[in-house]
């Protein structure tokens, strides 16, 4: 899966994890300060990512992700 496709899928997940608004995102978007994700939304996002991408966050915690690019890098690594 291409990096752009991962980001697009993440936009969908972030919209669903938030209030439904489609977020404008970039690689350096901060999950907490730019996208307004609370710890509960973060947990929901991680579970949604597991389900949508068929991967498992078994060697990292949600708090290890600060930027959107951290999440994309992690998914890319898992999909390889």
């Amino acid at each position, binding site marked *: 899966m291409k990096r752009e496709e991962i980001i*697009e899928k993440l*936009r969908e997940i972030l*919209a669903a994890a938030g209030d439904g608004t*489609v977020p404008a995102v970039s690689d350096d978007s901060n999950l907490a300060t730019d996208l307004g994700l609370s*710890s509960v939304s973060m947990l929901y996002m991680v*579970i949604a990512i597991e*389900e949508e991408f068929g991967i*498992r966050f078994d060697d990292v*915690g949600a708090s290890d992700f600060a930027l959107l690019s951290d999440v994309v890098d992690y998914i890319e690594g898992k999909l390889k």
Partner: protein
Amino acid sequence: MKWLPADCSFGDTVRVRIGSVYHYGIFVSEDEIIAFGLPPVPEYRDRPERLTVLATDADTFSCGSIIEKAVFSFSEKRKKRTPAKTVEAARSRIGETGYNIIHNNCEHFVNECVFGVARCTVEEEARKRWLSRPICDVYIAKIEDFSQNGAVYPPERDREIKECRNDALRAAKYADWALLALAAKRSLAVDFEKTGFKKTRRGRWCAGGFDFSLSHAAGSVAVAVSGDAVGVDIESVRDFEKKKASERTDKLRERFFTENERSAYPDGALPFLSCWTKKEAEFKRRGRGGFDPASLDTTKTDAASFLADGESETVLSVSADAIGALRVFTVKGDAVRLAEYQKIR
């Protein structure tokens, strides 16, 4: 399992609320509560042992909040270990690391100590919520982007499309179905080539396991997919104006709109098409009976209208049980993009 603020005893399962989350532990005494990690508060953020199984006193565990103890149901009591075995299991894990917020957190830890099974209700509920979320997705594409190479599934539909003699209509039907395959796979994780399709007596195609609706106009195709009933309709504003129909909207409104609709929609091509496409979409959602626009009051339906291309070219309406979950995607080649849209009246 219920939670009560009560005096705790040896082997009790306890928890404390920290912000929007709970921190769980096994109570041994006021001086010994065993938990996976320290409570998630700023003052412990830099402590090296914060994500290790450890024993703390009640003050450190509670962070000043009220400690609640678990009260087990009858069936849970039959499954749980004795207090002594629970404490033994917890103590045997002191020093363990490998904390993971999703798969190995403080709730997993206490459940494993008490029941021998690591589980977390927050994770289970969040997963269930995601998998059972309502879906109402609309995909929009240009007919010219579909090359008509290859067959569509099922073979009966492929035959129908190939037998269509009108080139433009055949291209639209092909694009509709190819877009449906993409939408069903992408939004509903449907194994499209194994889906049971059948045709109703009225000639409408239906799928087993999900609902869908197709529409095309002015070089564009729209497909709606949902786990619940859904209908979609798209119309070209330009074509409507070309046919001079826009000059007669007052007469059309008089004939086809209900009294509520005449009050809700002002005169003009765009409001007319907004209401009209809602009627078509609602009719498709119902999937039965004849189309009687004059008796179908869209002011009382769960439908939304918007400009499909972001300009005043095409009006698209969706009527759906899950309209609150509406998402709109634009498709161009391999690129699928979640689009912003503005509802119109």
